[in-house]
């Protein structure tokens, strides 16, 4: 393995790219530079990922430097399998989003290069937040990444953009500040003068303290994820954000919440996590069903997609807190697959909306006849949203349900209804927009152009390939999840059926 500071290099490259883009005078050059930088980052990330040895040390590519010794804060980055696949997800989505947003920023006569510079800043922070192995550094990225997203929604979003941006920022900030208190308290309770994650594992032993600290972290992550009932900011933010930003918001930023639950809530406060499991599972199940039912009732395409995500995040948190290898691995895989699946759904919806100028389902009809490729992409994206077997989301959803069933049968059964409801909201939306007689307003609609095909094709390819062959990802995820669960001190329940067969 090459001993290079990979992660710092990736973060630094995005930041430098952002600064360069911000100072370019020509918008076209700015876009091309952004695309170039993000593709370079993708290539480097893939090269890094290839060198990752799944069964080696838990944290690899580690770098640790003192940052603020007075506070015990380090600049410490490293990845395990879970963080790696999420960084990979971010690195894949950013160039696609850049390409998809090629003309988005021009509509409002706002600075194009600022938008692309913000995208690169956001990429740096997305890599940083998943790579941070210092709890304080994680917090810094967790909060700081709100700011570029806030400006992307607020400056470039739809009609209600400033309301949505403020709501997004305040919800996240509120959760983050509660987490800050827990972070400080964690430092004091552990009393090791260090925020390094490995130092803090098992540092909090008192059950009551664990519960309080767990709550501080969990509320922040639940808002971020978002978990029912603190999800209300997401439909607004996602519906008002430009399509590209919505992809990163729902596809990556929200994953920080579920990732945080898995990494910090479970491993740092294992007893408290077990104490809270019934409530969290209940909230997840409510989220699955509620998100799906509300999605059926939506009239706005982007809001609909946002509500489907709330339902999907229910699956992910359920899988994380089921704490069986299958469920938690499934949940991690789900984080990645959901990023691709929702990403393509948002992007295709964005293309649709860009052409017609309306987010309302009622304004469409019969698009399939005038723009078959667009409709086809929309269908595949939708089917991956409802976890059709053969597409990647099916694998992860099935793993979550299977793994949860091992320990919590009833929630798993109720959660399964989410799959059925998903078929309703996706297919009904497809039917209303794509089938039937062609509406007059969409009669002139153009099909996907070359650029848009390049946006959609890689994502659909990933969804299909990972649907049939998820092994490369699972090989990386499984050992990391197992090690996490060792820290949580849980073992998988013995399979009942196997015992019978052995008689």
């Amino acid at each position, binding site marked *: 393995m090459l001993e290079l500071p990979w992660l710092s290099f990736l973060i630094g490259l995005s930041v430098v790219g952002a600064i360069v883009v911000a100072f370019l005078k020509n918008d076209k050059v700015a876009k091309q530079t952004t695309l170039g930088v993000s593709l370079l980052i993708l290539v480097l990330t893939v090269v890094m990922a290839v060198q990752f040895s799944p069964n080696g040390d838990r944290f690899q590519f580690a770098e640790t430097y003192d940052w*603020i010794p007075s506070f015990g804060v380090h600049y410490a980055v490293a990845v395990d399998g879970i963080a790696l696949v999420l960084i990979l997800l971010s690195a894949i989505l950013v160039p696609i989003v850049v390409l998809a947003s090629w003309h988005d920023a021009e509509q409002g006569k706002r*600075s194009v290069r600022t938008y692309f510079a913000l995208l690169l800043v956001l990429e740096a922070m997305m890599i940083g937040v998943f790579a941070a192995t210092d709890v304080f550094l994680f917090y*810094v990225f967790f909060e*700081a990444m709100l700011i570029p997203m806030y400006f992307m929604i607020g400056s470039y979003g739809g009609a209600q953009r400033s309301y949505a941006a403020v709501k997004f920022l305040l919800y996240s900030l509120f959760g983050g500040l509660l987490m800050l208190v827990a972070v400080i308290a964690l430092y004091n309770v552990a009393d090791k003068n260090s925020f390094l994650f490995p130092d803090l594992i098992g540092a909090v032993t008192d059950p009551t303290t664990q519960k309080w600290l767990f709550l501080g972290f969990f509320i922040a992550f639940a808002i971020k994820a978002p978990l029912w009932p603190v999800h209300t900011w997401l439909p607004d933010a996602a519906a008002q954000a430009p399509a590209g930003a919505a992809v990163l918001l729902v596809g990556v930023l929200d994953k920080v919440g579920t990732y945080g639950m898995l990494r910090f809530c479970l491993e740092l406060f294992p007893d408290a996590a077990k104490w809270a499991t019934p409530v969290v599972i209940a909230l997840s199940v409510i989220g699955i069903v509620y998100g799906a039912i509300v999605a059926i009732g939506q009239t706005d395409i982007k809001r609909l997609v946002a509500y489907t995500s709330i339902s999907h995040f229910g699956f992910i948190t359920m899988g994380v807190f089921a704490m069986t290898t299958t469920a938690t691995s499934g949940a991690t895989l789900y984080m990645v697959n959901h990023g691709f699946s929702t990403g393509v759904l948002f992007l295709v919806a964005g293309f649709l909306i860009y052409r017609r100028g309306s987010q309302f389902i009622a304004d469409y009809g019969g698009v399939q006849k005038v723009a078959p490729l667009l409709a086809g992409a929309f269908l595949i994206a939708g089917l991956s949203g409802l976890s059709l077997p053969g597409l990647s989301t099916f694998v992860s959803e099935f793993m979550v349900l299977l793994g949860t069933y091992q320990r919590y049968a009833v929630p798993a059964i109720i959660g399964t209804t989410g799959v059925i409801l998903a078929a309703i909201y996706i297919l009904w939306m497809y039917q209303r927009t794509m089938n039937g007689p062609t509406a007059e307003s969409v009669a002139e609609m153009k099909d996907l152009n070359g650029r848009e095909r390049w946006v959609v094709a890689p994502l659909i390819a990933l969804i299909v390939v990972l649907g049939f062959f998820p092994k490369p990802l699972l090989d990386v995820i499984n050992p990391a999840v197992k090690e996490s669960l060792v820290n949580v001190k849980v073992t998988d329940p013995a399979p009942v059926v196997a015992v019978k067969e052995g008689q």
Partner: protein
Amino acid sequence: MITAPTIEYFQLAPLLVLLGAAVVGVLVEAFAPRYLRRAIHVPLTLLSLVGAFALVILQTIRGVPTSPSAMGAVAVDGPTLFIWGTILVLSFVSVLLINDEEQFVPSAAAVPGSAEEEKAITEGNAHTEVYPLALFAIAGMLLFPASNDLLIMFVALEVMSLPLYLLCGLARRRRLLSQEASVKYFLLGAFSSAFFLYGTALLYGYAGSVDLHAISQALAVANGTDTLLYIGMAMLGVGLLFKIGAAPFQAWKPDVYQGAPTPITALMASGTLVAAFGALLRVFWVALGNLDWNWTPIMWGVAALTMVVGSILAITQTDIKRMLAYSSIAHAGFLLIGVMAVGDAGQNALALSGLLFYLLTYGITTVGAFAIVTLVRDPGGEAWHLSRWAGLGKRSPKLAGLFAFFLLAFAGIPLTSGFFGKYAVFRSAVALGEAWLTGLVVLAVVASAAAAFFYVRVIVLMFFSDPSADGPTVVTPSWATSAVVGFSAFATVALGVFPQPVLDLAEKAAKTLFVQ
């Protein structure tokens, strides 16, 4: 036979330099021709501040005194030197802002709108007294947190406050508002000074001394006059809490901050706050340190009320200067948390270093924010009304970007200095490990989230709203104003990304604690 008192002139030198320069400034007013005055005042004032700062540095290098100076009247200890350095830096940048003729009235004595005023304007009069007045105020700010006995502290309070009362009334535009601010500040300030003085008298009655250390020792001896002690303590508290603008003594702040000329507001919001906090800490930690069981519950209530009042009332403001005033109130509430985080010596040093760092970062950001306020102008003066700031992000993206950055620093977003300031104080409070104080920190973060709302609202206005047709003009900043904004922005970033050197300094300053 009477022995002459010993005075450690070197230790008091920064103070003496400023007072000397202020006296020279008064002589310049008396004897120099009008056209020369400004040309003399500006370098004189700036140089004396630089000189005082250099002396502070020199003293820090030569070793921090471990006993009070001037027969125990003034304590030049580690925290004092840090506070002095902070105040001098903040004053220097504020004086650079004062160096703007557009801000001050040509003739304060003329009735607003009268013929005399017209005449003063056409003659090109200027109140160059502003400079010596500011120097007196700054000297008072230095003495206030360094006073080791209550009488000196009272004198310092007056030396600091009286020039400020005057300076508040000297705004060139919106003169009635400025005069109202001046009178309000004077009346309420005099009232609070009276409280302070009465408290001093009662404590003298209890302890038989005005020396902080003697009062502390008297606490150990029960002498049956506790009533004097408690009432005296409460009255001292009122006087000090008034100066930092803690609720329920905060009512003057929005009016005064709004009416005063903006450079003076910057000086008050940064320098005075630092000085008043230093004095508050000294009184409550040195003189009344052994009584913390008695005053922490009240301080708890005051801090909680201050944060809530500051954060909530700020939301209803439509004036940028009033909003910043309420923000300053909220910050005073956050700072008060650190005052209560007392325990053993290590804990006290932790709390003190956090407070010192917070005061520095907050002061710098505040001056930067007010400097930007001076640049956004309507025909009738600065554009204060928030609606006038709509769309500023499109008209002058750099200025709006910097202001947004300062607001994010106030809100305590990571990678700005404001975050580490808050963090340092909250950390010391949580480190005490007491549920009542940790609970207050939770309240503080909730208040921070509420406060973030009104900071963000301004950003929304500037960046996400469309500019009105007759929006305010952004004047080209003078070199001095650009320097102030640049310095503040740089410090806010630098202390937000790499705070360690300054944290080290604050820790070193706090380690010795206040001398007894």
